[in-house]
């Protein structure tokens, strides 16, 4: 077989194939339910109900989507430049760590000052953590996939070290947990009484800003050029190294913000289970959104819905909650295949 470019895909192909991919994911969900001995339609119903079936469920989904928007944006920005940042998990923890360091009493400031400072610090922290791998990539050609992946493990151990040592909360009853943030460091809720904090609003603003950056500014143009054809970009005088470094700073900063938002908006303190893999899931979010920053919002909501729905479902049916990860991995693989097939057709020979 051979792949031949399709000059003009037409909207049936452009929309139909991704729809087939999503349909395939649903079929996989049903098959897995059968394997686990449950009624597939009931399981699907429980997932949907658990994700959007009540005000509580919906808010839970929005809260879960918030960090995913940040990490999804972090990945989307980096992948555009073909900078394979698989380390959003570590960058998230770095952001959260710095927020906790500064926000638990070190800076006794009013909210209006403290929150922007914490935000800025989280951005810088995340950015710095990706700077190393990006520098090694541009200078020495060291593959950033492996370095960022390995740094995730290092970072989690580092946080564990701090939480069991110097940063351990004396009131934590022995759990590795940091002290709580000052009240002034906490993000307010968007609507009084509803469990949804301003981190979500911040995520939406970031998605919009990234979109504007990518479509309207020369930096966005440079990032796209470097990602699509590094050789041509360099020949045309685009400073490739500088662009990759800038991309790394933006990407790491966005992932750092995820840590800020989780700690200052939701949890109030740092624990080792702050992120159940938001950094890795961000990759799926970004890929499902085809790296489009506005699409990231939609896909983060979708992914969060699957997680929240599956959690809720697994309490009612005998299907393990890991079904969510299987579904997302399948959706990812089917979707990249579908997108490729909108641009190429398979011919014999």
């Amino acid at each position, binding site marked *: *077989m*051979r*792949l031949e470019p399709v000059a003009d895909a037409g909207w049936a192909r452009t929309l139909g194939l991704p729809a087939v991919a999503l349909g395939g994911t649903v079929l996989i969900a049903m098959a*897995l339910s059968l*394997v*686990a*001995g449950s009624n597939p339609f009931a399981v699907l119903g429980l997932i949907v109900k658990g994700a959007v079936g009540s005000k509580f469920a919906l808010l839970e989904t929005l809260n879960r989507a918030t960090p995913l928007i940040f990490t999804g944006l972090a990945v989307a920005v980096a992948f555009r430049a073909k900078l*394979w940042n*698989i380390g959003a998990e570590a960058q998230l923890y770095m952001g959260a760590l710095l927020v906790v360091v500064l926000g638990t009493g070190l800076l006794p400031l009013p909210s209006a000052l403290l929150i922007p400072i914490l935000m800025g610090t989280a951005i810088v922290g995340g950015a710095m953590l990706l700077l190393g791998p990006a520098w*090694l990539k541009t200078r*020495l*050609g*060291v*593959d950033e*996939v*492996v*370095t960022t*992946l*390995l*740094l995730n*493990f*290092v970072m989690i*151990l*580092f946080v*564990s*070290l701090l939480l*069991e*040592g110097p940063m351990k909360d004396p009131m934590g009853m022995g759990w590795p947990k940091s002290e709580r943030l000052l009240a002034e460091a906490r993000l307010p809720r968007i609507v009084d009484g509803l469990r949804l904090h301003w981190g979500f609003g911040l995520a939406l603003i970031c998605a919009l800003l990234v979109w504007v950056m990518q479509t309207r500014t020369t930096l966005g143009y440079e990032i796209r050029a470097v990602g699509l054809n590094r050789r041509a970009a360099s020949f045309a005088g685009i400073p490739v190294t500088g662009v990759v470094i800038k991309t790394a700073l933006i990407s790491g900063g966005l992932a750092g913000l995820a840590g800020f938002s989780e700690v200052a908006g939701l949890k109030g303190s740092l624990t080792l289970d702050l992120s159940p893999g938001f950094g*890795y899931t961000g*990759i*799926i979010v970004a*890929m499902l959104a085809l790296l489009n920053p506005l699409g990231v919002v939609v896909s983060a909501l979708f992914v969060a819905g699957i997680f929240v729905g599956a959690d809720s479902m697994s309490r009612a049916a*005998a299907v*393990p909650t*890991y*079904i*969510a*990860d*299987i579904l*997302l*991995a*399948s959706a*990812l*693989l089917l979707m*990249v*295949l579908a997108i*490729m097939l909108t641009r190429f057709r398979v011919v014999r*020979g």
Partner: protein
Amino acid sequence: MEILDILLSASFWAAAVRIASPLIFATLGELICERAGVLNLGIEGIMVVGAFAGWMAVYSGADLWTGVAVAMGAGMLFGLLHAILSVPFGLSQHVVGLGITLLATASTYFAYRVSLPEVTNPPRIEAFKELPIPIVSDIPIVGPALFAQTPLTYLAFVAAAVVAFVLYRTPLGLALRAVGENPHSVEAQGLSVTGLRMGAVIVGSGLMAVGGAFLTMSAFNSFFFEMVNGRGWICIALVVFGAWKPGKAVLGALLFAAFDALQIRLQQTSLGADIPYQIFLMMPYLLSILALVVMSRRAEVPAALMVPFNRGER
């Protein structure tokens, strides 16, 4: 000197070789894939699958070698999926590999929960036992280190020799080395680029899974979540460190394992008591990064690594 005592103890070297064994399998598997031009980031998840499948088979009553075969088969299945997506369809090897890792890991955990819903403590199995080889195992230090290991460890070294032999001494190996360098050279000589690459990814994934199975069948004797714990990513670094050559990769794995065994022992010394254990646990990952940096300038990367091949296209 405590360090010197450690380095001169037979148990240290035996531990190093034991720690190296799963890495050798998985590194060889990755090496085969990359030699053929495919970066297999599914390695981490495929090791999880292998660890679970081998253990589950034995737990369900199969004998140990059947367990190894089952692990290998399960790994090859995910390898097949990776191969289909990344070779004929030419999808991004980064995305496919990470997707496979997620899919394999999640499927394993799902299967574990479905098959053992009520279990809180994972059951243990009767695993491979040490099989000292007569006479040579009595040599001081070298004997216990190399010749008093489990059969799976011996198999790891046999596998390395076989991979090296095939790669450098047979027509198949010649074709593999060519297809990762310039697939057009293979196509023009009447061989199938797709076939060679898919075969390499499938076989390589099988070896990765055996590496995973080593953990449950020859080291921990049980399966628990996150037991692979980044070993797959470390193996990718080891392939680079070994400059895509089986012999050097095995040496790299042994060197790496020696450091790992050393840090475990250092934790128990008076020096180690003052240092948080997390610092020791970080060492393997930091060492891997260091290995990548050190080798970055010298490595002879297969020229067509990560470049998909589409017939008739230049």
